Protein backbone atom coordinates (compact mmCIF):
# COMPACT_ATOMS: atom_id res chain seq x y z
CA UNK A 1 0.00 0.00 0.00
CA UNK A 2 1.34 3.38 -0.94
CA UNK A 3 0.39 6.93 0.02
CA UNK A 4 -2.42 7.10 -2.50
CA UNK A 5 -4.00 3.88 -1.17
CA UNK A 6 -3.79 5.27 2.33
CA UNK A 7 -5.36 8.56 1.34
CA UNK A 8 -8.17 6.69 -0.42
CA UNK A 9 -8.76 4.61 2.71
CA UNK A 10 -8.64 7.46 5.17
CA UNK A 11 -10.12 10.43 3.35
CA UNK A 12 -13.11 8.86 1.67
CA UNK A 13 -14.88 7.00 4.47
CA UNK A 14 -17.57 9.67 4.34
CA UNK A 15 -18.85 12.30 1.91
CA UNK A 16 -18.42 9.99 -1.06
CA UNK A 17 -19.70 12.14 -3.95
CA UNK A 18 -23.34 11.73 -4.99
CA UNK A 19 -22.65 12.73 -8.57
CA UNK A 20 -22.87 10.86 -11.85
CA UNK A 21 -19.15 10.01 -11.87
CA UNK A 22 -18.13 9.88 -8.19
CA UNK A 23 -14.85 8.05 -8.82
CA UNK A 24 -13.83 10.85 -11.20
CA UNK A 25 -14.63 13.37 -8.45
CA UNK A 26 -12.51 11.38 -5.97
CA UNK A 27 -9.72 11.18 -8.56
CA UNK A 28 -9.79 14.93 -9.04
CA UNK A 29 -9.33 15.50 -5.32
CA UNK A 30 -6.37 13.11 -5.34
CA UNK A 31 -4.89 14.54 -8.51
CA UNK A 32 -5.06 11.28 -10.47
CA UNK A 33 -7.40 9.99 -13.14
CA UNK A 34 -10.63 8.06 -12.75
CA UNK A 35 -9.24 4.77 -14.05
CA UNK A 36 -6.49 4.88 -11.45
CA UNK A 37 -9.03 5.25 -8.63
CA UNK A 38 -11.19 2.43 -10.00
CA UNK A 39 -8.17 0.16 -10.39
CA UNK A 40 -6.98 0.86 -6.86
CA UNK A 41 -10.41 0.34 -5.32
CA UNK A 42 -10.77 -2.93 -7.21
CA UNK A 43 -7.38 -4.05 -5.94
CA UNK A 44 -8.07 -2.97 -2.34
CA UNK A 45 -11.43 -4.77 -2.47
CA UNK A 46 -9.94 -7.95 -3.90
CA UNK A 47 -7.19 -7.84 -1.26
CA UNK A 48 -9.81 -7.48 1.47
CA UNK A 49 -8.53 -4.13 2.75
CA UNK A 50 -11.79 -2.48 1.71
CA UNK A 51 -15.00 -4.32 2.61
CA UNK A 52 -17.03 -2.23 0.18
CA UNK A 53 -17.57 1.26 -1.13
CA UNK A 54 -21.07 2.34 -0.28
CA UNK A 55 -23.61 3.40 2.27
CA UNK A 56 -23.47 2.58 5.97
CA UNK A 57 -27.04 2.36 7.22
CA UNK A 58 -28.25 3.31 10.68
CA UNK A 59 -29.15 0.20 12.69
CA UNK A 60 -32.86 -0.60 12.43
CA UNK A 61 -33.35 2.01 9.73
CA UNK A 62 -34.27 -0.81 7.42
CA UNK A 63 -35.80 -3.89 9.01
CA UNK A 64 -34.68 -5.32 12.32
CA UNK A 65 -31.45 -6.65 13.77
CA UNK A 66 -29.92 -7.95 16.93
CA UNK A 67 -26.62 -9.05 18.42
CA UNK A 68 -26.80 -12.61 19.69
CA UNK A 69 -24.40 -14.89 21.52
CA UNK A 70 -24.06 -18.62 22.12
CA UNK A 71 -21.98 -20.55 24.63
CA UNK A 72 -20.84 -23.36 22.36
CA UNK A 73 -19.00 -26.41 23.74
CA UNK A 74 -15.46 -26.20 22.26
CA UNK A 75 -15.69 -29.51 20.41
CA UNK A 76 -18.90 -28.33 18.70
CA UNK A 77 -17.60 -24.92 17.73
CA UNK A 78 -16.66 -25.61 14.11
CA UNK A 79 -19.96 -27.23 13.26
CA UNK A 80 -22.13 -24.66 15.02
CA UNK A 81 -20.13 -21.67 13.75
CA UNK A 82 -20.62 -22.95 10.21
CA UNK A 83 -24.31 -23.53 10.83
CA UNK A 84 -24.76 -19.95 12.14
CA UNK A 85 -22.75 -18.47 9.24
CA UNK A 86 -24.90 -20.37 6.77
CA UNK A 87 -27.90 -18.12 7.47
CA UNK A 88 -28.06 -15.28 4.95
CA UNK A 89 -29.58 -13.16 7.75
CA UNK A 90 -26.32 -13.48 9.72
CA UNK A 91 -24.00 -10.77 8.41
CA UNK A 92 -21.36 -10.82 11.16
CA UNK A 93 -20.17 -13.87 13.04
CA UNK A 94 -17.19 -13.76 15.39
CA UNK A 95 -15.52 -16.22 17.67
CA UNK A 96 -14.69 -14.44 20.94
CA UNK A 97 -12.74 -15.34 24.05
CA UNK A 98 -15.43 -16.00 26.64
CA UNK A 99 -17.75 -18.81 27.71
CA UNK A 100 -20.14 -17.02 25.33
CA UNK A 101 -17.79 -17.75 22.44
CA UNK A 102 -19.87 -17.17 19.33
CA UNK A 103 -21.23 -13.66 18.66
CA UNK A 104 -23.28 -12.86 15.60
CA UNK A 105 -25.50 -10.16 14.16
CA UNK A 106 -28.85 -11.11 12.65
CA UNK A 107 -30.44 -8.66 10.21
CA UNK A 108 -33.80 -9.28 8.56
CA UNK A 109 -36.66 -7.32 6.97
CA UNK A 110 -38.65 -7.31 10.24
CA UNK A 111 -38.21 -7.82 13.98
CA UNK A 112 -40.37 -10.96 13.69
CA UNK A 113 -38.08 -12.38 11.03
CA UNK A 114 -35.08 -11.74 13.31
CA UNK A 115 -36.78 -13.64 16.14
CA UNK A 116 -37.61 -16.49 13.78
CA UNK A 117 -33.93 -16.87 12.88
CA UNK A 118 -32.92 -16.89 16.57
CA UNK A 119 -35.58 -19.50 17.35
CA UNK A 120 -34.41 -21.62 14.44
CA UNK A 121 -30.77 -21.44 15.58
CA UNK A 122 -31.79 -22.33 19.15
CA UNK A 123 -33.76 -25.33 17.91
CA UNK A 124 -31.04 -26.59 15.59
CA UNK A 125 -28.18 -26.16 18.10
CA UNK A 126 -30.10 -27.03 21.26
CA UNK A 127 -28.40 -24.03 22.89
CA UNK A 128 -29.81 -20.95 24.59
CA UNK A 129 -29.42 -17.87 22.43
CA UNK A 130 -28.58 -14.67 24.30
CA UNK A 131 -30.50 -11.93 22.47
CA UNK A 132 -29.02 -8.43 22.92
CA UNK A 133 -30.99 -6.07 20.69
CA UNK A 134 -29.87 -2.49 20.45
CA UNK A 135 -31.64 -0.17 22.89
CA UNK A 136 -29.83 3.02 21.91
CA UNK A 137 -26.75 3.95 19.91
CA UNK A 138 -24.47 6.70 21.14
CA UNK A 139 -21.89 7.06 18.44
CA UNK A 140 -22.37 8.84 15.15
CA UNK A 141 -20.26 6.67 12.86
CA UNK A 142 -18.18 9.00 10.75
CA UNK A 143 -15.58 6.43 9.85
CA UNK A 144 -12.43 5.45 11.64
CA UNK A 145 -9.11 7.26 11.58
CA UNK A 146 -6.60 4.68 10.37
CA UNK A 147 -3.26 5.51 11.90
CA UNK A 148 -0.32 4.28 9.89
CA UNK A 149 2.83 3.45 11.72
Amino acid at each position, binding site marked *: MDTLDRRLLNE*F*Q*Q*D*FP*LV*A*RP*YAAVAERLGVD*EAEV*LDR*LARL*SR*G*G*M*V*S*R*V*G*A*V*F*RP*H*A*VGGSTLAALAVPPDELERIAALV*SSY*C*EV*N*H*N*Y*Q*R*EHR*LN*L*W*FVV*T*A*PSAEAVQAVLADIAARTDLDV*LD*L*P*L*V*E*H*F*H*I*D*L*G*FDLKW*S
Partner: protein
Amino acid sequence: MSILDDIDRAIVRATQDGLPLVERPYHAVAEVVGTAPEDVMARMERLLAAGVIRRIGLVPNHYALGYRFNGMTVWDVADTDISEAGRLVGGLDFVSHCYHRPRHPPEWPYSLFAMIHARERDAADALVAEIATVLGSLSRGHLVLFSSRILKKTGLRV
Protein backbone atom coordinates in the same frame (compact mmCIF):
# COMPACT_ATOMS: atom_id res chain seq x y z
CA MET B 1 -38.92 2.79 8.74
CA SER B 2 -42.10 4.29 7.38
CA ILE B 3 -40.14 7.06 5.71
CA LEU B 4 -38.78 4.51 3.24
CA ASP B 5 -40.86 3.67 0.21
CA ASP B 6 -40.45 0.71 -2.12
CA ILE B 7 -37.91 2.46 -4.33
CA ASP B 8 -35.81 3.46 -1.29
CA ARG B 9 -35.86 -0.14 -0.13
CA ALA B 10 -34.86 -1.34 -3.58
CA ILE B 11 -31.93 1.10 -3.49
CA VAL B 12 -30.87 -0.23 -0.08
CA ARG B 13 -31.01 -3.80 -1.40
CA ALA B 14 -29.11 -2.88 -4.57
CA THR B 15 -26.33 -1.08 -2.65
CA GLN B 16 -25.92 -3.15 0.52
CA ASP B 17 -22.94 -5.01 -0.90
CA GLY B 18 -21.46 -1.72 -2.07
CA LEU B 19 -21.60 0.46 -5.13
CA PRO B 20 -20.30 -1.11 -8.32
CA LEU B 21 -16.78 -0.07 -9.29
CA VAL B 22 -17.77 1.38 -12.65
CA GLU B 23 -17.60 4.93 -13.96
CA ARG B 24 -21.29 5.59 -13.33
CA PRO B 25 -22.25 3.50 -10.30
CA TYR B 26 -25.53 5.31 -9.57
CA HIS B 27 -26.61 4.72 -13.15
CA ALA B 28 -25.94 1.01 -12.64
CA VAL B 29 -28.00 1.03 -9.43
CA ALA B 30 -30.78 2.97 -11.19
CA GLU B 31 -30.97 0.31 -13.85
CA VAL B 32 -31.38 -2.45 -11.28
CA VAL B 33 -33.95 -0.49 -9.30
CA GLY B 34 -35.86 0.74 -12.35
CA THR B 35 -35.67 4.47 -11.80
CA ALA B 36 -33.61 7.41 -13.07
CA PRO B 37 -29.99 7.88 -11.92
CA GLU B 38 -30.88 11.39 -10.70
CA ASP B 39 -33.62 9.84 -8.59
CA VAL B 40 -31.15 7.38 -7.00
CA MET B 41 -28.75 10.20 -6.09
CA ALA B 42 -31.54 12.45 -4.79
CA ARG B 43 -32.98 9.64 -2.67
CA MET B 44 -29.59 8.70 -1.23
CA GLU B 45 -29.04 12.38 -0.43
CA ARG B 46 -32.39 12.45 1.36
CA LEU B 47 -31.66 9.22 3.28
CA LEU B 48 -28.33 10.71 4.32
CA ALA B 49 -29.99 13.91 5.53
CA ALA B 50 -32.60 11.86 7.42
CA GLY B 51 -29.86 9.81 9.10
CA VAL B 52 -31.04 6.52 7.58
CA ILE B 53 -27.69 6.46 5.79
CA ARG B 54 -24.97 7.45 8.23
CA ARG B 55 -22.28 7.89 5.65
CA ILE B 56 -21.34 6.92 2.13
CA GLY B 57 -17.75 5.97 1.48
CA LEU B 58 -15.08 3.33 1.75
CA VAL B 59 -15.67 0.77 4.47
CA PRO B 60 -12.20 -0.38 5.52
CA ASN B 61 -11.62 -3.85 6.87
CA HIS B 62 -9.78 -3.07 10.11
CA TYR B 63 -8.50 -6.60 10.47
CA ALA B 64 -6.95 -6.76 6.99
CA LEU B 65 -5.31 -3.38 7.63
CA GLY B 66 -3.40 -4.74 10.59
CA TYR B 67 -5.88 -4.00 13.37
CA ARG B 68 -5.71 -7.53 14.72
CA PHE B 69 -6.99 -6.68 18.19
CA ASN B 70 -10.68 -6.02 17.82
CA GLY B 71 -12.16 -5.82 21.26
CA MET B 72 -15.79 -5.75 22.22
CA THR B 73 -15.61 -3.92 25.55
CA VAL B 74 -18.69 -4.35 27.72
CA TRP B 75 -19.50 -2.32 30.82
CA ASP B 76 -21.87 -2.81 33.70
CA VAL B 77 -23.47 0.61 34.00
CA ALA B 78 -26.56 1.36 36.10
CA ASP B 79 -29.67 2.02 34.00
CA THR B 80 -29.89 5.51 35.47
CA ASP B 81 -26.33 6.30 34.31
CA ILE B 82 -26.48 4.76 30.85
CA SER B 83 -27.18 7.96 28.88
CA GLU B 84 -24.33 9.80 30.55
CA ALA B 85 -21.96 6.85 30.13
CA GLY B 86 -22.99 6.43 26.49
CA ARG B 87 -22.40 10.08 25.76
CA LEU B 88 -18.92 9.91 27.32
CA VAL B 89 -17.79 6.71 25.64
CA GLY B 90 -19.52 7.40 22.32
CA GLY B 91 -17.59 10.65 22.16
CA LEU B 92 -14.19 8.94 22.19
CA ASP B 93 -12.73 9.05 18.69
CA PHE B 94 -11.19 5.58 18.90
CA VAL B 95 -14.52 3.91 19.70
CA SER B 96 -16.07 2.78 16.41
CA HIS B 97 -19.46 1.71 17.79
CA CYS B 98 -21.12 2.38 21.13
CA TYR B 99 -24.45 0.81 22.04
CA HIS B 100 -26.79 0.29 24.96
CA ARG B 101 -28.00 -3.32 25.00
CA PRO B 102 -30.12 -5.12 27.61
CA ARG B 103 -28.35 -6.88 30.47
CA HIS B 104 -29.05 -10.51 31.39
CA PRO B 105 -27.79 -11.01 34.94
CA PRO B 106 -26.24 -12.91 36.52
CA GLU B 107 -24.07 -14.11 33.62
CA TRP B 108 -24.36 -10.96 31.59
CA PRO B 109 -24.66 -7.78 33.70
CA TYR B 110 -23.13 -5.61 30.95
CA SER B 111 -25.25 -2.95 29.28
CA LEU B 112 -22.84 -0.64 27.46
CA PHE B 113 -20.93 -1.95 24.45
CA ALA B 114 -17.97 -0.12 22.88
CA MET B 115 -15.87 -1.51 20.03
CA ILE B 116 -12.14 -0.78 19.89
CA HIS B 117 -9.50 -1.65 17.30
CA ALA B 118 -5.73 -1.78 17.77
CA ARG B 119 -2.68 -3.19 16.04
CA GLU B 120 -1.07 -4.44 19.27
CA ARG B 121 -2.40 -5.98 22.44
CA ASP B 122 -0.75 -3.26 24.58
CA ALA B 123 -2.43 -0.53 22.54
CA ALA B 124 -5.79 -2.26 22.94
CA ASP B 125 -5.28 -2.49 26.71
CA ALA B 126 -4.45 1.22 26.80
CA LEU B 127 -7.72 2.05 25.00
CA VAL B 128 -9.69 -0.06 27.47
CA ALA B 129 -7.94 1.74 30.34
CA GLU B 130 -8.88 5.08 28.79
CA ILE B 131 -12.55 4.09 28.64
CA ALA B 132 -12.35 2.93 32.27
CA THR B 133 -10.90 6.29 33.26
CA VAL B 134 -13.58 8.20 31.40
CA LEU B 135 -16.34 6.12 33.01
CA GLY B 136 -14.85 6.19 36.49
CA SER B 137 -17.41 5.11 39.06
CA LEU B 138 -20.16 4.88 36.41
CA SER B 139 -18.75 1.44 35.60
CA ARG B 140 -19.36 -1.33 38.12
CA GLY B 141 -17.30 -3.84 36.15
CA HIS B 142 -16.22 -4.64 32.63
CA LEU B 143 -14.93 -7.29 30.26
CA VAL B 144 -13.07 -7.21 26.96
CA LEU B 145 -13.92 -9.91 24.47
CA PHE B 146 -11.36 -10.02 21.70
CA SER B 147 -12.38 -11.66 18.45
CA SER B 148 -10.24 -14.72 17.95
CA ARG B 149 -11.70 -15.37 14.50
CA ILE B 150 -13.87 -13.54 12.00
CA LEU B 151 -16.16 -16.26 10.71
CA LYS B 152 -18.35 -14.05 8.55
CA LYS B 153 -18.56 -10.32 7.80
CA THR B 154 -20.70 -8.86 5.08
CA GLY B 155 -22.71 -5.69 4.63
CA LEU B 156 -26.28 -5.20 5.66
CA ARG B 157 -28.67 -7.90 4.46
CA VAL B 158 -32.34 -7.24 4.00
